[in-house]
């Protein structure tokens, strides 16, 4: 079953459409890599190697910037990217540890 989809040819991230388990072989630009972590549906992984400062492209449009590098197939989320507009918040930020 397809686990990752490409929404737009300019994108440098892929979207998880079926749950990913550690060790699953993920098809990314240039071949397959084993998943380092479990990733749930709706999340993103790097399509190819990304460096800090790179714009993250999804739907063919910039959706933020990397703040840390990511290897192909690595999970891309709040730990390694940020908004170019308004900072995102989580429950821990708002109300203390969840």
């Amino acid at each position, binding site marked *: 079953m397809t686990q990752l*989809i490409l929404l737009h040819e300019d994108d440098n991230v892929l979207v998880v*459409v079926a749950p990913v388990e550690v060790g699953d072989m993920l098809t990314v630009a240039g071949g397959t890599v084993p998943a380092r972590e479990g990733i749930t549906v*709706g999340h993103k992984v790097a399509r190819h190697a990304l460096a800090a400062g790179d714009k*993250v492209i999804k739907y063919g*449009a*910039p959706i933020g910037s990397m703040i840390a590098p990511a290897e192909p197939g690595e999970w891309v*989320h709040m730990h390694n*990217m940020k908004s170019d507009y*308004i900072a995102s918040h989580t429950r821990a930020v708002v109300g203390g540890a969840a």
Partner: protein
Amino acid sequence: MIEGYLRSDGRKGIRNVTIVAYLVECAHHVARRIVDKADDPDVHLVGFPGCYPNAYAAKVMEAIATHPNVGGVVLVSLGCESFNRERLRAVVEASGRPVELLVIQEVGGTAATTKAGLEAVERVRAGAAKTPRVPMAVEELVVATICGGSDGTSGITANPAVGRAFDRFVADGATCIFEETGELVGCETIMATRAITPELGREIEACVEKAERYYTTMGFGSFAPGNAEGGLTTQEEKSMGAYSKSGSSPISGIIKPGDLAPTGGLYLLDVVPDGEPRFGFPNISDNAEIVELIACGAHVTLFTTGRGSVVGSAISPVIKICANPETGRRLAADMDVNAGRILEGQATLAQVGDEIYDRVIAVASGERSVSEELGHREFILTYKAFEPVGPACLPTRAQSVLA
């Protein structure tokens, strides 16, 4: 064929609801008791909790009380609040609808007003029942959309499927409204290119910039913790997904809460207040936005959700479209359309778009949506401040005056 309820202003409704409206929180309990005791799926509770005057709230309440889905109105006032009850009654009366006003301090308290209110509901319903039924064309429909509890699947399944349905409704000549400029931050440049005039394009960019400034002052974007848990990382990522609900039709104009679109076509509802931030967050929760869409004449609201929202609304039915297949299984009994099938390869975007279109026609023809059937009748209205839209926002207005 849709059989509409013909109102005196020529608009047609798909429901014939009686509303019981409290004009201050102090009258909320009595109004709720009246609605509870009436025990009728077409008697709905609405209201405004504030004691201080607010032009926006007055405008929205007038728009709600004269909405084509509303057949009659019972107003419940405490007596000392500042809401102009006489004006609201006069506006409803002028629209040809039955209306009754109860002032708790004059009627004699909770029990007496509840009893009087129930009798008023009976009379108003009897009056509303005389509303003529007439054929209603698809082009007479106003269809709105909102997303709530979005996740990483919303922008690839339910939202673009609503966009497909919107494109069909716009092609039919219907009016479609999308909204939440705070959730369009990051899309303003792309969106401006779809405006029917360059001046409107600049207004679209300006209204998204206003939203960004406003939310920055609030200290939070329009981004909930559940969005991040669902795989969305940034405001602009959420925005790009939300934006796809608008489909691909040209954008005909910008309206504000309580405004009616002058023609068919696709309109953007600017929900972020004008001026310095004063009363807090633009919309404190999804239902505040749904109320504004209804105040703009929406007969039906298409609500897409990834994490799983269960809400409905007073006045106009909400149709739920679930984006995430896992949520779709867990909350199946709350959803009208399962767009998560797209991710599992069981349906295409176009098929789900057609299913949404057909569902709107069925609900407009009298079938109850799932949230309606479950008794969801949420309504929330709070303080805001708006300036009227400028002439560049409505290039179609001149056209409609000529027509």
